[in-house]
C-alpha cells in the first residue's frame, strides 16, 4: 500500500477484501504532466458568451465533468455548471461537447479522440443563466403537463416473478429530463413553439402505461400542429438520447395512433377527437 500524506488524494486500498495486496495491480495513473485543453463557454446573466481556455490534468478515467469540476476547484471558482449523480441518472450535466450533445459525467476524455475539448451549454431547453447553466423552464413547461409518472412497470428477468403480495415490479422511467433531445432537435432550434421530443415521448409513455396520468389529456396536448405533426423525422433526438428513450419512435407511434383515430372517426361518421 502506498504511503499517505495530507496532500495525497489517493485512498488506501479497500478494507475487508482479503487476499494479498501484492495481487492487486497498482492504480492507473497518468503520465506526469499530461493535460488537455478545455475551451469553455462563459457568460454572466444576459451577457454574450465567449470562450475561456484552461489546461486540465487528466487520467484515463477523467470525464468532461471531472475536467470542469477540476477547473472550478483549482483554476476558476466562478465557473457555473449543473451536476448531481455522476452516473447518467439525474440528467443535469447535459452539455454540448465538441458540438455534440452528451452527459458530461459519462463522456470520457479519452473517447473524444484527442485535441481541444470545447464545452457549451445545451440549446433550446431554456434561457442561458450563466456559463453552462440553462434554466430548464422551457423544457419542463412542455414536459410536465404530460403528467408522465416517474415510476413504470419493470421488465422481469427470465423466469422471474413478483414477490408474494406484490402485483408487479416497478422501475423508474428511462427519461432523465436532461434536455439533450431538445438541444439536438433541428425543429426545436427553429420553432420555439414546438413541444419537442421529450414532451412527446412522455405523451407516448402515458398512452402506453397511464398509471396516475390521463392518456386522453396527453394525446390532446400532443396531437396539435406544434406537437407530433411538426416533427420532420430527423431522428437526431433518438440518436442523441443518453437513456434509450427513442423519442422519434414515440412520435411516429403517436402519429399512427392519431391518424388511426381520425380514420376511425371518418369511417363511423363521428368527429375526429383532435
Amino acid at each position, binding site marked *: 500500500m502506498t504511503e499517505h500524506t495530507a496532500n495525497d488524494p489517493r485512498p488506501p486500498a479497500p478494507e475487508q*477484501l482479503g487476499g494479498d495486496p501484492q495481487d492487486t495491480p497498482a*492504480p492507473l495513473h497518468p503520465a506526469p504532466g499530461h493535460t488537455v485543453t478545455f475551451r469553455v463557454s462563459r457568460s454572466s446573466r444576459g451577457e454574450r458568451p465567449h470562450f475561456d481556455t484552461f489546461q486540465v490534468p487528466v487520467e484515463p478515467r477523467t470525464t468532461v465533468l471531472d475536467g470542469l469540476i477540476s477547473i472550478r476547484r483549482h483554476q476558476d*471558482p466562478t*465557473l457555473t455548471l449543473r451536476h448531481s449523480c455522476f452516473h447518467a*441518472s439525474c440528467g443535469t450535466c447535459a452539455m454540448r461537447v465538441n458540438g455534440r450533445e452528451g452527459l458530461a459525467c459519462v463522456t470520457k476524455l479519452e473517447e473524444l479522440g484527442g485535441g481541444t475539448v470545447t464545452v457549451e451549454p445545451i440549446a433550446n431547453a431554456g434561457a442561458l443563466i450563466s456559463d453552462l447553466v440553462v434554466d430548464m423552464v422551457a423544457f419542463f413547461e412542455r414536459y410536465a403537463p404530460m403528467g408522465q409518472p416517474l415510476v413504470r412497470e*419493470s421488465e422481469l428477468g427470465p423466469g422471474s416473478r413478483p*414477490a408474494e403480495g406484490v402485483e408487479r415490479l416497478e*422501475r423508474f422511467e428511462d427519461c432523465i429530463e436532461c434536455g439533450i433531445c431538445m438541444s439536438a432537435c433541428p425543429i426545436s432550434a427553429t420553432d420555439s413553439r414546438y413541444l419537442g421530443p421529450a414532451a412527446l415521448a412522455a405523451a407516448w409513455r402515458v398512452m402506453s402505461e397511464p398509471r396516475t396520468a390521463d392518456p386522453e389529456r396527453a394525446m390532446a396536448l400532443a396531437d396539435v400542429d406544434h406537437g407530433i405533426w411538426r416533427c420532420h423525422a430527423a431522428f437526431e433526438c433518438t440518436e442523441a438520447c443518453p*437513456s434509450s428513450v427513442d423519442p422519434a419512435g414515440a412520435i411516429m407511434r403517436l402519429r399512427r395512433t392519431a391518424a388511426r383515430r381520425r380514420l376511425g372517426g371518418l369511417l363511423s361518421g363521428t368527429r375526429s377527437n383532435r
Partner: protein
Amino acid sequence: MNQAPGAAVPAHIVIVGGGGTGAALAHDLVLRGLRVTLVERGEVTSGTTGRHHGLLHSGARYAVSDATAGAECIQENMILRRTAPGTFEENDGLFVALTDEDREYGRRLVAACEESGIPSRELSAEEALRLEPGLNPELLWALQIPDGTFDAMRLPLRWFATAKHNGAVIRPFTEVVDVTSASRCVTGVVVRDHTDGRESRIAADMVVNAAGPWSEAIAAMARVDVPVQPSPGVLLALRGRLCNMVVNRCHPAADGDILVPQRGLTIVGTSSWLVDHPDDLGVPEDHVRAMYDEGAKLVPAVRGAEQRAAWSAARPLIGGRGGSTGRELSRTFECFDHARSDGVEGFVTISGGKATTARAMAEKTADVVCAKLGIDRPCQTRDVVLLPHTAYYLS
C-alpha cells in the same frame, strides 16, 4: 436579533447547503411559518446527496449493530412512501447468505429486524431464486425486507418544490463566503452569486449549516468547530437491470456488498475511506475492481456487465477523527446548537445521517431552531404530501 413569537414578521432562517437535509429542512421550516432562504454553492443536490446509490433503507442494514438506527430507518421509510408517492421503486430487498457465517448472521438479522419493527420474510434458496433469478445459485438462504429504490435527486426536488411553493427562496450557484456575527451571535451570511459574480449580505435570525461534508468549512467561518469526518466511497453503475430488488450481502456492512437497481442500471456500492477534504476524491481502480469482485458474488452477471460510470461520494460522518476507514463511525446524525457547545448564538449545524433519514434530521433540526426562537409549532412533514419533482422548475 432573534424574533419574538407572535411578531408581525416571522423569523428569517438561512440554510447553507442544498442537499437532501437542507431541502427537507426548508420544507419543514416554511410549514412552521418561518421565512427561509437556502443557499447552495452549485446546483441543488450537487454534493453528496445526488451521488448516493438511491437505497430507501428498510433499516435491516443497521438493525444488528444499531437497533435505534434500524427503527429510525423503517419509520422514515414508511413516512416517505406516504408523503412522496410515486417516487420509489417499491420492489423490496433481499439479504442473501452465501456462507455458513452469513447464515449465522442471518439468524441475528431476523431477530434484530423484529426488534426494530422491520417486517421480514425468510426465503429458501429456491424461493429467493424465483424472485431474483440472477442471484448466485449457490446461495443458502435469503431474507426479504422492505428496502426500496429512489432517485437521489428527484426526492429532494419534491421537498424543494413544496418549500418553494410555500414561500422558501432557493438560491443555487450562491456560495457562502463569510458568516457575519456581532458579540458572539451570528447575524447572517455573505454570499457570492456565481451567475453574476455579485456579493451580497443576507441577514438571518438564525443560520443553519447543512453543508454535509463541507460543514466544517462553513462552521470555521462562524469560528466554531464541528467534528465532521468526510468518508468517501466508490460506486459503480452497470448497464442493465441485473436485479429488480435491492440485493444485500447478509453480513455486517462492508465493501461492494449491495446492488441497487435504478432505471436501466444496476448500482454497486460501496467502499469507505477517510479524507481531510471532500473535494478531489478520485476513483481508485482497486476499489472499482473490488466492487466488481464482491458484487459478482451476489449476482454473477455483475462480472461481465458494461461499466456506465464509476464515481465517489463523501459521507459526512460524525466525529472520531483518526479512524481508518469510516466503517467504525456511526451512520446516525447530530444537530449541534453552537450556543451550547461553543457559546455562539444563532448558529446550528446538522450533519451525519443518510438520505433515508433526511426528513427526520430536518424535523429534529427544525425543533431545535423553533425552540431557540421560542416558537411552538408542530412538525407537519410526516403528513404533508409533496408536489411532484417537476414543480421545482416551474414555481
